[in-house]
């Protein structure tokens, strides 16, 4: 699908969608949203870019293979569960800073867990999509 409209739109939609995904990620703890949905939205923004400009261009844009996000995300989630253990609390107990940060809001170990999920979802979704489109391209 090489249409000029989609191509132009995707250039603006990519950063917008990414920003939106971060917004969804941050509001997620008490309101609908969170790491999983945020990650999907972020992945979709890249998929849209790939539709408009071709997979190879999205590859160039990403610089690293999205696969690397999977262990990073898993590690981040795991560490966020570890932190409470340093304070003598059970694994995965939510620890929060007392004061909210500007823009971001309340920051705690649960947020880092969500960020980990966000990365894993982006990594997994893009790896799957890239792999599938690679094989279909080979067959063509």
């Amino acid at each position: 699908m090489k249409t000029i409209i989609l191509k132009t739109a995707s250039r603006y939609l990519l950063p917008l969608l990414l920003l939106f995904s971060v917004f969804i990620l941050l509001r997620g703890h008490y309101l609908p949203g969170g790491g999983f949905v945020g990650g999907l939205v972020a992945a979709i923004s890249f998929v849209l870019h790939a539709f408009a400009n071709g997979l190879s261009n999205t590859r160039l844009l990403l610089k690293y293979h999205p696969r690397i996000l999977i262990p990073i995300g898993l590690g981040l989630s795991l560490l966020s569960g570890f932190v409470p253990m340093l304070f003598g609390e059970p694994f995965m107990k939510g620890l929060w800073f007392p004061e909210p940060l500007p823009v971001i809001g309340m920051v705690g170990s649960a947020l880092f867990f969500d960020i980990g999920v966000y990365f894993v979802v982006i990594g997994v979704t893009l790896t799957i999509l890239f792999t599938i489109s690679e094989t279909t391209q080979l067959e063509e």
Partner: protein
Amino acid sequence: MTDNHIVLPVITHLFTAVVLIFFWKKTRISRIISVVANSILVISSFVLFTRTWNAGVFTMQAGNWPAPFGITFVADVFSSTMVLLTSLSGMAVSMYSAVGVSKARMKFGYFPLLHFLLMGLNGAFLTGDIFNLYVWFEIIIISSFVLMTLGGRKPQIEGGIKYVAANLMASVIFLTGIAILYGLTGSLNMADLSRKVALIPNRHLINITALLFLVGFGIKSAVFPLFLWLPSSYHTPPSAIAAVFGGLLTKVGVYALLRVFTLIFVPDDFIAFTLMAVATATLLTGAFGAIIQKDIRRILSYLIVCHVGYMVAGLGLFTETALTGSLFYLIHDIMVKTNLFLVSGLIYKIKGTIKLEQAGSLYAAYPKLSLLMALVLFSMVGVPPLSGFWPKIYLFQAAFAAHSYTVIGAIIVASFFTLYITAKLWAEVFWKDAPTGVARHSDLYNRMNHYGKALLVTPVILLAIVTLYIGLGAENIARVSVHIAQELMDPSPYINAVLGEVVLEP
């Protein structure tokens, strides 16, 4: 007692898996990391075992949410014994895989998946929440499915599809059971369920729910008539993977049966009868199936099915002695079955075949190695004083006390056939002269350097030593089994440990 030590067997595997993903293509480093992590876990789970042995039940509320609402991790002696056995087999398998698994497989993420699988196993043993148990089962299925099909040869995919179809069905049935149970009681915590299910007056409904769990776990632990997926899939993956599957995967099903049917659904006459009938049929069909097979791994697969019958029979009899027998058998079986699959891999490396008629004269070529393998084989049969002998005494005692002569008959028949099959295996693979006319296979084992040979044989020796200890130090293992059986017969310490310290804050 709240203690974070409980989650270490789970977290360590997850952490190792994450680190291993970073070293995806670097096979040499992966092997070292995997073996080191597993060695740490053996020590860690041994410490956990001694602590639960000395101090009773440990609990950990994940996220500090109090018991019936949050997810509880519980380590009693039963759980920690299972974790210890998992760590031992995990360590043996990861050492063996360093040489026994091809580099191509390693590059497709063999080691991270192995650790995800072990994490799932440990999680299933340690969780105190029935829905969480389901989640761990899913983790086990997904990682084992990928491990089984890794390499993508045609028979592997075929076996993998049968495996996944059967196990997904089991999950659906298990999940339905959980849903009904939640509808009845409004709780998912196993200790809480134990209290609440006992109070429900409609026992027929409880029995039907119990049957859903029985079918779900029955498929996973491969009892009659739900075992057909096992012999048609376990011979396809490489031996190192088959060792984890054969040693541990069906045993998770048995663990879940033992846990759920002592804690939540205490067997009444109907359930006890069903369990015994199933056990008898499993013992017989497994034994008959194994006789006609002509391939070492398929024989072993049927023997897995056959021997699950012993453990289910002990549960069906439901006395302290019978459960002691079941648990002793469980401990012995995990070690022996893991080792036997490793041995079959070793035979394959040496002879290039695992078909009975093509193999032969192994004893002439490798007398010491053959004696080692003989030790493992005859431990499985239970030639006294080796390990398989002792649990059967307990089972006999319990069955005589309950006057269930059908079960005694089935146990005798199954033991006899196991002996016959083992003798046949020994005669065909080790004593018989190598058949002429078969294309000579170059001995891969002989061409390895000392380092490679050591890595292949050490895990077998290690597990053989543990098996030997189970046989010769039977007194200690029996003490552990009796202790666990008492825990299972009287779950109140477990329940109190989970729910006792609940303080509901306003």
